[in-house]
């Protein structure tokens, strides 16, 4: 049984610290979520455990972390459903070749560079229980992810959602996330099947069959939710609860298939009907508890697993610097180059690269999976968290330099179709404002 007093105390402390940090970060023109990510790190061994080890041990005893983790994972399951819900394949189609090339390059460039870096890091930060292929593929997937919800939040705060830059960025980020999660699913299957589980072809076959059932079967059922919503102007509590059960069932299916809970919830969100009002309605139902209560617990749990003191000595900081450098060159540079080659002006292309370089919360989700399946070591996990914080934190100031307010106002396209203009704004609600 969990020590209820400890658990409630933990939740209260986490909420207070996250709200305060989020507010402070907003004052320096950062999205609140960046502050909450930092708050999580502050509550872990990197700061609280280092400055006040006894208080840290009292507040977060090792025996209690399982319950904190369980709560935070429920939050991430719902969060991934909301992320999938906000992704609309039509956004990419509306952007044409430029977005296709940019999104694909923004995946392959960091992926290949990270895999190349893995040649150097594998003998130094891994061990022989991890195959190089798994290590390199995971590094690639982790570096190529874009924080779709954080990106949408930043665009919204800067009134850039309706600019060409904003719409291309949203479309590319959506493709990046879907592709990144597919690659990650493959890596998880690869790793688990290599450990005496089911053969890889059976797992992959099961995953493909599940995806087909979801897309061609369950999606039709979900369309009925949208129809009922349209007819009645809302959904009953029972229907919302049923939808939640479907999300959890989907998560359980992917977990039992040998991938991860989060893939199921993400897929359920992705195949949901994308009518703007329906999406907005679901976000309103699910986001408050997820964003204000459960996600801060995830940040805290991630922070408790992040031990920056493991990154000690010039050698380790060199590895960390290389990771940050490769992440920025691959993602920012790759996206910038591709968009520039497809005709986007240089400054705008650099802005797009900066936006795509935002990793935020999605990176933390992926890194936690990597640490759970032990494909990355605790020190590498901490370095990658530092990279996620830096790349997310740098987005707002760099974007301000590249696309100052005057330029943003000039480039806003109010004449853009209502559908495209409205679509990304649905995502903004996925993260705290």
């Amino acid at each position, binding site marked *: 049984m969990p020590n209820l007093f400890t658990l409630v105390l933990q939740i209260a402390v986490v909420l207070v610290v996250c709200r305060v940090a989020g507010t402070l970060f907003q004052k320096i023109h950062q999205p609140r979520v960046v502050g909450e990510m930092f708050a999580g790190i502050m509550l872990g061994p990197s700061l609280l455990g280092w400055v006040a080890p006894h208080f840290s041990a009292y507040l977060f005893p090792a025996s209690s972390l399982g319950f904190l983790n369980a709560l935070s994972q429920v939050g991430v399951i719902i969060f991934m459903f909301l992320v999938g819900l906000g992704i609309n394949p039509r956004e990419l189609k509306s952007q044409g070749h430029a977005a296709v090339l940019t999104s694909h390059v923004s995946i392959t460039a960091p992926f290949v560079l990270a*895999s190349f870096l893995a*040649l150097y890091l594998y003998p130094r930060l891994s061990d022989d229980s991890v195959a190089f292929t798994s290590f390199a593929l995971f590094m690639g997937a982790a570096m190529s992810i874009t924080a779709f919800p954080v990106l949408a939040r930043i665009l919204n705060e800067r009134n850039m959602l309706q600019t060409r830059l904003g719409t291309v960025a949203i479309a590319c980020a959506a493709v990046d996330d879907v592709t990144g999660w597919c690659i990650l699913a493959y890596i998880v299957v690869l790793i688990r099947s290599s450990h005496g589980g089911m053969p890889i072809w059976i797992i992959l076959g099961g995953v493909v069959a599940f995806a087909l059932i979801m897309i061609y079967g369950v999606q039709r059922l979900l369309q009925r939710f949208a129809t009922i919503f349209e007819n009645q102007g809302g959904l009953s509590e029972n229907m919302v609860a049923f939808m939640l059960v479907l999300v959890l069932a989907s998560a359980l299916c992917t977990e039992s298939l040998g991938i991860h809970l989060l893939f199921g919830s993400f897929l359920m969100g992705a195949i949901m009907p994308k009518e703007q009002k329906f999406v907005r309605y679901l976000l309103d139902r699910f986001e408050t508890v997820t964003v204000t209560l459960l996600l801060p617990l995830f940040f805290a749990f991630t922070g408790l697993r992040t031990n920056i003191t493991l990154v000690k000595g010039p050698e380790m900081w060199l590895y960390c610097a290389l990771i940050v450098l490769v992440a920025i060159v691959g993602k920012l540079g790759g996206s910038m180059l591709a968009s520039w*080659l497809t005709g986007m002006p240089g400054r705008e292309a650099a802005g797009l690269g900066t936006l795509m370089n935002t990793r935020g919360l999605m990176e933390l989700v992926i890194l936690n999976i990597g640490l759970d*399946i032990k494909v990355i070591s605790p020190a590498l996990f901490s370095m990658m968290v530092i990279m996620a914080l830096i790349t997310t934190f740098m987005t707002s100031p760099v974007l301000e330099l590249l696309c100052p307010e005057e330029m943003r106002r000039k480039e806003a396209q109010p004449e853009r179709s209502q559908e495209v203009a409205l679509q990304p704004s649905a995502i903004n609600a996925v993260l705290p404002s």
Partner: protein
Amino acid sequence: MSHSNGKFAIAYVFLVALPITGLVGILRSGRSLKAPNSVDGVWNIQAATTKAPLSSCVSALGHDPDTPVTISQSGKNFTITAGKARGTGVIDGTALQASLSPAKVPAANCGSDGSVALTATLEAKASPRALSGILSVAGCPSCESVEFHALKQASIQKKGGQ
């Protein structure tokens, strides 16, 4: 194929297809790389001998002999947790060296700071992996060492392995 489609195809080949080919090469060349031996996990440790002077010093570690020792590895470096005692160490090939700090103030005859040095050799080819070595009190030549043997517990979580 229109002019713009042609340009798109060329750009796609150079910026996407070629790097993916490069990725295949990277994955192939990486297979020959050797990472440090894995000691990450939970170990059941047993003392082969027990000598009175060291027992009191080892008890200062706050480690119950029945409690497994946990090693968390990052490349050659690792952290070791034995009960309330924590320490860090390095693995070089099959040789492990670590230093554990006591959880409580050690007796006066337990060296300057009472830290316990762990020196061990990994039996990498054994299944499950095994460690054999000695625990000695740092800075206390008069304290006798204790030989130990440890067996790695089967991991509960699946690991990113071969």
